[in-house]
């Protein structure tokens, strides 16, 4: 737990930064995506697109849409973060500033 004994903000480890940033930013993107998507499409109409007999009640439709967007953007940002952070270091001897 953070914060009981602390003065000022603890330094987060790089992994913690990545996990929470990816979670949070994909959450925000999913929120915007859901909003725009459902402003244009009614979840009650969408069920039929997959299966003619499928009727989705709206509450479930919104939730499903939101989690679809969240998982989608989560995967997208997680993979990006992973690639950025695990890129092989090349030619280390010629790097101008070691970090």
């Amino acid at each position: 737990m953070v914060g009981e004994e602390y003065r000022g903000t603890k330094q987060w480890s790089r992994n913690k930064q990545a996990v929470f940033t990816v979670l949070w930013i994909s959450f925000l993107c999913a929120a915007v995506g859901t909003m725009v998507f459902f402003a244009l499409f009614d979840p009650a109409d969408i069920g039929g697109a997959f299966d003619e007999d499928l009727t989705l009640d709206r509450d479930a439709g919104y939730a499903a849409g939101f989690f679809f967007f969240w998982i989608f953007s989560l995967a997208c940002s997680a993979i990006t973060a992973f690639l950025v952070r695990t890129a092989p270091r090349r030619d280390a001897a010629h790097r101008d500033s070691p970090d």
Partner: protein
Amino acid sequence: MTDPQPASMYESAKKIYPREMGGRFADLSKLATVTLLGLFYIVPWLTWDDRQAILFDLPARKFYLIGLTLWPQDFPFLALFLIIAALSLFFFTALAGRLWCGFACPQTVWTEAFIWMEQLTEGTRSQRMKLDKAPWSWNKIRRKGSKQFLWVTFSLWTGFTFVGFFTPIRELGVEFVTFSVGGWTWFWAVFYGFATYGNAGYMREQVCIYMCPYARFQSAMFDKDTLIISYDEKRGDPRGRRKRSVDPKEAGLGDCIDCTLCVQVCPTDIDIRDGLQYECIACAACIDACDSVMDKMNYPRGLVRYTTEHAMQNEQTHVLRPRMMVYGALLMVLIGSLITTMAIRTPIILDVIRDRNSLYRELPGDMIENIYTIKLINQSNNAREFKLSVEGVEGIHLDGIGNTILVDGGSVLSVPVRARVHRDNAFGVMKIDFIAEALDESGHKRVEDSRFLGPTP
């Protein structure tokens, strides 16, 4: 000369931890917290015209904003509104820096509320530290337990209120009391409540430092005329400890007594005296801290203060600068167009869907028929009568509906209609217009185009 014996404020300084600094800005931020949270918790309970004044009724796909009802078809308004909101953020950031962060961001506001509950149950920072170090005892359980109780209850109430913006809150309240809340409602209330609990109870300004995109972007909107919180280096340096009786000028010192109080109160643990840093959330705690020291020392306040980079360099601050004028002009145009389009909005929506299953039908008497589904939405709050007609091809007329159609206030009427044209006039694909006209003095009218298919010669 500096005194080796520190003045009294150095000792007490150790006991001060973030946010226990009272002062002008702390009061202001409390006021902002109370106002904004008050609005959040009260607004869903307000009624207007026998219904919830502000309700984003997702199950019914209608947004009620006081007297206005918005439909999914009004999406352009929402888009325009969001653009305006984003642009306003740019505008205010360029003008006043991170005033938003210090006083209006939900993150700040809820954190403030959670800290208040923490102090209520566990006492001041030093008491809290002692409590944490102490072995488990009845007192510790009681204090920790009541903090968690307050936090969890408050979070749940927050989640409940949040859901109350999307489903009628009064019915929700009844369901809560009678334990008949539906699964999704529970889910969203707990979800939002938990996010509040985590973000405001535990993560706090770490959200600002590590997770907030605005915090990283905002420096791009800053310029030398932006209002920032800054330490007045010219006046403060060289820093040094001294007794109250010592005249700093004689001692060759600036006004900063190097008590580091401004660092100790800083929730993000930065030293404002090192200059503007992106971790600074402009909470103004360091201003309060420094002012209190200046008061004790009998120096003028404002060694740390709201100012601009230009002012710090003894230059003129320009509030009206090109950037502000461009942002301002754009904002005005957008707000103006939002208001005008809202004002001239006709509260009727007409949707025409052509039956996709058939091209056309040939009827006896040399008539060609196309089938459509008409959706007529009456966005006003009262029932109204409409006349539906069609034009665009010679002799085209509708069959299967009466002369007038009645649509209840705020509802949708979906009717199948048949449009007929004599074979001599129907060739290939023709553009036609459906017209819905309100039969009252308003003269409201909506035109929607569609296609009429006839035989290809």
